[in-house]
Structure formats: C-alpha cells, structure tokens
C-alpha cells in the first residue's frame, strides 16, 4: 500500500467523520434543547405533583403589579392549570437572608393554601441556614397547608417571636426571612386572587 493512498483514505475518513457528526448534531439539536427545557422545568416545578397540572406554567409568566412587599420582592409568577382550570399559582420571591439574597419558589393552590416551598438560590451558612437549600426539605414542608389566615398574622412568625413556627437551629435570621417571605406571598395571593387565577374563576 503506498503512502499517498493511505493519506487520501485518512483525509476522507476525517472529512466523513466531521460531516457525519455535524449532521447528527444538526438533526438532534432541537430535540435536545426541548428535552433540556423539560428537565429544567421539572426541576423548578417539583413543588407540584406531576399529574396536578397539564400546561407549561413557565411558558406563560403572569404580569405582576406592586411586586415590592413588606419583607420581600416578587420576581415572577406562573399559573399552573389542569383542563383549563387554575390549580396553583407559583410565585418567585426574593428576600434578604443572613448572607445575601434567598430566592424561593412558593406554590399556592386556588384556595389560598400553601402547596410547597422550594429554595432556588441562597448563600446561607452551610449546615446552618444552608439547610434551607436541601430538597426535599423537612423544615419547609412544615408550612404546607397553611394559608394567610390560618394561622393569623401573629402566628406567622418564629416561636422566638411569639409565633407558631419552629426555626432552623442556629439560623434565626434565615428562618425569619423565609417565614416573612412566605407570609408576604400568601398575602399577595389573597389581595390579587382574581388576577392571579385569571378571569376564568
């Protein structure tokens, strides 16, 4: 076998390989992107049960007004619905923790009760306030089922502040900020119920 022929064969192989990989990449790219979106939204939406909604909440963000609340700021809102009926509103809330901002995703059902809270971003001390970032989260689960009026305004605080909620050990500021942010979100939901749930209800 002479040298020229092997060089030509190798060059052909390199060209074919590049072309083939490029083709496969081109053909697969849209599907990979949509899979990635699906995975991202599942990660964000796992406060809701998988069969509780059938729309794509993240595709249609709600237009929120007066987003500056007493202890927190709302960044975005999404509506989850099933068969056209709203089942939950998701509020993305940002509050000031011990060591920077805490971003929470707060899910509230159509009756104003809390479905779940998930921490999206935080900078708290690892093993103390940082426990807020765990998922599934035992402490955040204690808020499930609460609403704006149950407990009442005085009850929406840590036991240290004469409220009714336990705190994360050694992380009073983180816990207080979280409780206040959740209460803010529930209050906001109550005040803007009609717009958040849409005209359908």
């Amino acid at each position: 076998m002479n040298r020229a022929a092997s060089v030509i064969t190798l060059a052909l192989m390199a060209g074919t390989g590049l072309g083939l990989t490029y083709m496969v990449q081109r053909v697969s790219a849209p599907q990979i992107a949509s899979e990635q979106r699906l995975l991202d939204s599942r990660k964000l939406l796992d406060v809701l049960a998988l069969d509780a909604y059938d729309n794509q909440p993240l595709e249609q963000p709600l237009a929120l007004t007066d987003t500056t609340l007493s202890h927190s700021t709302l960044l975005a809102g999404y509506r989850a619905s099933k068969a056209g009926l709203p089942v939950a509103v998701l509020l993305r809330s940002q509050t000031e923790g011990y060591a920077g901002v805490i971003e929470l995703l707060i899910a509230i059902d159509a009756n104003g009760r809390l479905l779940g809270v998930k921490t999206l971003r935080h900078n708290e001390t690892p093993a103390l306030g940082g426990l807020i970032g765990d998922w599934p989260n035992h402490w955040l689960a204690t808020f499930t089922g609460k609403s704006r009026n149950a407990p009442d305004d005085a009850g929406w605080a840590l036991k240290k502040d004469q409220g009714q909620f336990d705190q994360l050990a050694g992380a009073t500021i983180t816990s207080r900020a979280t409780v206040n942010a959740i209460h803010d979100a529930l209050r906001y939901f109550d005040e803007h119920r009609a717009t958040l749930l849409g005209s359908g209800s």
Partner: protein
Amino acid sequence: MSRPTNLTNTLMLMLLLGTSATLSGALGMLLMASSVVVVYGTCIGPLRSKLSGNSLMLASVLLAATVTSCANILAQRWALQWHQALGVYGGLIALQCVVLEYNGFFRQALAQRLRFFGLASGLLLALAALRELFGQGHLGRGLSEHWQGLVLFSDGLHLLTLVPGAFILLGLLLAARQAWTRSNALSKETHHP
C-alpha cells in the same frame, strides 16, 4: 499477551470505576459502549486490508472519535438525564475502542470476543450492583419510573458511592478471586497427592 497490554488495559479502569455508581447508570453505559464497539468493529474491518501500521492506528482514532461523538449526541437526545450524570465518561469509549484495536481484540475469533465482552460487562454490572446496594442501600433505582428499586437498607456506606470506594471494592473483588482460585488449587493438590 505481551507485557504492554497490561498497561493499556488499565486505561479501561476509568470507565469501569466512574460509571459503576448505580446499576441504571452502568446499564446505560454498557449499552452505549457496546453499540459503539459494534459499529466501530464493523467499520474498521474493510479499512484493515487497506491500511497498515501507523496509518491504521490513526484511522482507528478517527473512526472511534466519530462513532463516539455521534453516540454522545444521540445519548443526549434520548437520555438527557443519564447523559448529564455520566456523559463525561462517554468520550472515554473512543479510548476503549483504540485500546481494543491495539490489543488485537477485533482480530480474535468471535467466541473469544464474546467471552471477553461477557467478562467485562459482568464485572461492570457486578461492581455497579454491589456499589449501589452497599453504598446507597437500594438496587435498581431509576430503571423504571414507577419502581423505587429494591430497598434493603435506609442508608449505606457513603464511601462506596465515590470513585475511591469503587477502586477499593475492585481490589477486594480481585483479592477474593485470588483467594478462591488459590484455595481451589490447594484442595486439588491435597486430593491428588
């Protein structure tokens, strides 16, 4: 085989240790690796008669890289979650192909090749099953969406889920095999004085 074989074979350890944390991950990697090796084996056949020596090695590298990158993209397409966890090891399959080529695996008889494949995949799956079972306390989680896997303990030995733990476990398995074959040889000797 010749001595350099042992050195090149250690290149396969990375894939074995890295992907054997869970049974589902190991099964995915086994599927991907075997399809790449099969496609590579079919394509390199006709080239072998045309090229020789260094240019064959170069062709083997090119072909392995092509097949592996295509398989990598397809894995992203069909199993993105698996790919995000173990996809970094996917590129090493190309290295496996080249090592196998270098060792003359593709020139062996079919029965010998199948035997090697069975041994390698058996080792991978056994290591994965042991690591998942004793490291995390369950077996087969993630194989099906509706099945949580066979849960035996609530908590396992965390070390085994890490790569160094895999290395230690592999060492223990090798030691056990050595002890087993030696005791067999000894008992044979005593039976036939």
